[in-house]
């Protein structure tokens, strides 16, 4: 059939325009920003190029704090959420009744507003003048001492953040793993049963290898997602994350760009590129590791 170049072009114009203006141009621009020293967004001038912005960011204690927070968050939440969701998916696929009800309930956090529900978590954990907060009362019940999870100490705040993050990311993982489990041909389980394979061995030697591509996919997207954590932290600790000591890398980028300490797109760009490099490196490592352990049919 005839080539319809001009027609195709017409169809593609809107997408090309938007992508060009809001993805491709910014992609180059962010690198330029990151190398322009002392860029002033008001006068749009700068006085040199080089690595100063990177150096500034890397020497900024707030950035280092954000980096530390983000890494802790990633290292805790990715394995924990993937592990628990695998268990839950396994449980879901083994029950004869109520499966759909459980599935629906478990998926609920996916459709909620992170900021709004974060507030609920905050009041559950928070110690106020009036009340210890429900979680603290629970701790007291088991003989523990109250902790102010929202204002101090650091580990308590980190715990709440991790807990909330896991709560938010679980629905997606449970859903994906449940459908992965459902796609495993049951004949393998029957074969294994006839051979007297124990439940644990069926799980580790058959189920996990067969759904390993999906687990791996969740780990990679989990890493990427956790590195970009921001709004859950805001929901729990408020806009001023630096003051709370709970900032994340993405939070640092936005704070540099806008807000009380904002107005420095150059620093923001440098930090964003650093984040991108970190995520890219981790993803590459993941891909290398997966070569050995993931079975692709």
């Amino acid at each position, binding site marked *: 059939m005839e080539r319809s170049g001009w027609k195709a072009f017409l169809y593609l114009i809107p997408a090309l325009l938007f992508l060009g203006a809001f993805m491709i141009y910014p992609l180059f621009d962010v690198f330029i920003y990151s190398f322009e020293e002392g860029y002033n967004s008001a006068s749009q001038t700068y006085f040199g190029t080089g690595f100063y912005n990177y150096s500034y960011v890397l020497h900024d204690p707030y950035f280092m704090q954000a980096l530390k927070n983000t890494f802790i968050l990633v290292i805790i939440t990715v394995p924990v959420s993937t592990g628990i969701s695998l268990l839950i998916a396994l449980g879901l696929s083994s029950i004869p009744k109520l499966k759909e009800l459980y599935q629906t309930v478990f998926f609920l956090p996916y459709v909620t507003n992170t900021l709004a529900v974060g507030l609920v978590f905050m009041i559950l954990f928070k110690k106020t003048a009036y009340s210890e907060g429900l979680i603290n009362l629970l701790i007291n019940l088991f003989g523990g001492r109250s902790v102010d999870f929202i204002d101090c100490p650091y580990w308590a705040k980190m715990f709440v953040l991790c807990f909330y993050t896991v709560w938010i990311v679980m629905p997606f993982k449970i859903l994906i793993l449940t459908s992965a489990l459902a796609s495993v*041909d049951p*004949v*393998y389980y*029957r*074969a*294994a*049963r*006839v*051979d*007297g*394979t*124990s439940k644990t*061995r069926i799980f580790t*030697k*058959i189920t996990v*290898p*067969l759904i*390993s591509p999906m687990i791996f996919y969740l780990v990679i997207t989990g890493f990427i997602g956790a590195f970009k954590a921001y709004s859950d932290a805001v929901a729990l600790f408020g806009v001023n994350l630096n003051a709370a000591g709970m900032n994340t890398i993405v939070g640092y980028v936005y704070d540099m760009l806008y807000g009380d300490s904002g107005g420095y797109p150059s620093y923001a760009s440098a930090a964003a590129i650093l984040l991108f490099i970190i995520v890219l490196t981790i993803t590459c490592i993941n891909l290398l590791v997966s070569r050995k352990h993931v*079975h692709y*049919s």
Partner: protein
Amino acid sequence: MKIVLKNLTKRFPNRNKKGGADVIAVNDFDFEIPDGMLVGLLGPSGCGKSTTLNLISGLEKPSEGRIFFGEDDVTDLPPENRGVGLVFQSYALYPHLNVFRNIRFPLENFRGKDRLTKEEMEKRVVEAAKLVQIDHLMERKPSELSGGQQQRVAIARALVKMPRVLLLDEPLSNLDARLRLQTREEIRRIQQETKITTVFVTHDQEEAMSISDLIVVMKDGVVHQIGKPQDVYDDPIDQFVAQFLGTPPINMFDGEVRNGQLYIGEDKVLDVPGVRDGAVAAGIRPEGFILDYEGPLVCELTRLEVMGRDVSIIFKDEAMKGEAVRAIIDAKSRVDTGSGKVSFFLKPDKVHLFEPETGERLRFGKAE
């Protein structure tokens, strides 16, 4: 190890409509499979033969009745404690493990006193692989094997744990025609070498007839006949068995018996002493026709199919059921196609009479 099924029944709840009657997949099975035999469970799809296999393997629990392996009542045992090897229709080879590790898999499950060392496992895996002649493919993944090779791996995996009973579910259905012939010989050879009591399920009567010591013909959850393949073919117990066995299938006619003589249409074709008067369903095997001008059965010739070794005569008759009648005769006989008519004598032992309503066999004695 002989297998005894006593009053075995399996009901499934009806899933289509609430309050509907249960589906009876296996209805009151009562038979014995002698030790060391190769037995084919044969029937059309949905007849309950796979359910029977699953009951023997323990993957499903019977609603009623008992199953014995030798003297042991295994009815309440889970599959792993029964010592059965099961080969699935789709083979169920673990896609992420190579051939060697697939075959080794069942051995790794042994616990306690049965536990094997690595060397013992390897020795047995190699033995099993040699038995089915795939010992050169050990490093391959299942996806890199042909259907026939996958089948062999599946059999090796079932045999490696030295089961008391080997079960095969439609073992040849996923193979192409040429491989099917080859593989069924292979199954026969393996069974004879190992002497393991083997039960296989098939809907293909030719497959079952060709290699089984014993066939069990079933339909709608009911066993119709058990016996040696040739015996069942020669002496079917009812119309279903007669029609199910044999390719080309038996030709059915509406017949009538008057005074111990069988009439098809107005032709008086055969003496059938001892059969009550009245309408009958008459089945005539394709090889039961003898071409002769003077033959009493006269029909309208449709066409000839020359196959080399023999000739098929396709013809029509008003009393036939189905589209056409097929007779197979020796290629040496000359068929005169000019008149458009053919006439036959019938071989008495190739003619079977049945009650038209129930399909029950009506036996007749030898003509004097």
